[in-house]
């Protein structure tokens, strides 16, 4: 499997039956494909509905996902305006949000909305999501294209929110934020602790229960 599939597979086991979930654009949208049997989640789309479903053969007018692409609404879903949508998000009615990151630091700070002078797409709904969702999971590649760690001691890019991240899932490892700081909990197949240490720009402790990455076959070879 490739790195995106591996990250999505691992992230899928963080979701529980009945969770209301908001998934960021890109990699996180792959996660529902890997939900364990019997786990049904309710997807919230910040442009104004719950019950987001995969697009069908017939395009439905006026129905898009948060990326502006054609989408579907499942039975039980409902539409509402943007104030209600963000009341759901900010008001703690979304159980989990999983989104990408440019940097996550040792304090649980997240930067994922701009690179000054270069790329300023705007925060869209990301700041509200990471502030309001009960659990914030960052699912991202461990390093940037130039090999620099995306897990850093202190974010250098403008923040999306402070201290909001609960968990980081990368193609190498799973980390959790605890009151004692960043803790390494799982390693991907074939990945040594030393590799993670070398490629991580923040200090972390290693869990006494360090284990293989959940939901990934132990003989899996990354492409």
């Amino acid at each position, binding site marked *: 499997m490739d790195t995106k599939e591996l990250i999505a597979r691992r992230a899928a086991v963080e979701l529980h039956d009945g969770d209301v979930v908001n998934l960021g654009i890109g990699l996180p949208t792959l996660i529902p494909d890997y939900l364990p049997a019997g786990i049904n989640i309710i997807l919230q789309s910040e442009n*104004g509905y719950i019950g987001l479903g995969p697009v069908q053969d017939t395009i439905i*007018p006026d129905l898009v996902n948060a990326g502006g692409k054609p989408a579907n609404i499942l039975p039980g879903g409902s539409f509402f*305006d943007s104030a209600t949508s963000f009341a759901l998000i900010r008001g703690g009615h979304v159980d989990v949000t999983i989104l990408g990151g440019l940097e996550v630091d040792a304090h649980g700070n997240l930067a994922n909305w701009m690179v000054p002078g270069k790329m300023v797409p705007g*925060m869209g*709904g990301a700041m*509200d999501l990471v*502030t309001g969702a009960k659990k914030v999971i960052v699912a991202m590649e461990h390093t940037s294209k130039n090999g620099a760690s995306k897990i850093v001691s202190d974010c250098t890019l403008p923040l999306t929110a402070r201290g909001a991240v609960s968990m980081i899932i990368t193609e190498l490892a799973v980390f959790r934020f605890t009151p004692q700081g960043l803790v390494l909990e799982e390693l991907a197949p074939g990945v040594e602790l030393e590799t993670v240490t070398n490629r991580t720009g923040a200090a972390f402790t290693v869990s006494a229960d360090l284990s293989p990455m959940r939901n990934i076959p132990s003989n899996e070879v990354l492409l």
Partner: protein
Amino acid sequence: MGKVTTLEEIGELVHDGMTIMVGGFMGTGAPDALVGILMDRDIKDITLISSDTALVDTGVGPLVLGRRLKKVIASHIGTNPETGRQMLAGELAVELVPQGTLAERVRAGGAGLGGILTPTGTGTMVADNKQTLTIEGREFLVELPLRADVALLKAHKADKSGNLVYRNSARNFNPLMALAADLVIVQVDEIVETGELDPNIVVTPGVLVDKIICYKESE
């Protein structure tokens, strides 16, 4: 007075320098024909309040490419590269607002509130130069209301009294903006007689709506 009108009459109501709210999310629920009037009439120096700047050629996108804007207040500009280019070149002022904060600022503007308190953006550059309040130990930003001279909206159906129903995810900012502008103009797919819309399904009350035009893509 009749609310149902023509594109020509609406053209007389929009002017250079206005603050204009436009409904829609990435173009879905945006009133393309009303944006088209701004383009055709060469309206410029607009302060635009919208969820995003859509794509270069959808929703409010043409207003950016056509350089009709003085300032944009939006949550996301990444899908219209022209907005970012003009911003980085110093040609266009852009105020980026978290989308939920934008929705609440518009709601506050329409609801007679002096602002809202939100935790979103605390500890980030969004908080720069803003007042904060600590309530029960938690820090909140004071975010001020937004209003506009004109709101250009899209609904699916209107009756002749201006009652509106929306379709699917095209609702988004439209019902909020209907409360927050001095003049509210709505493009709809269909107009029915007053009394034909079940009052139980009306989302925007007709008293908020000043002008309605029926416009279909095929026309």
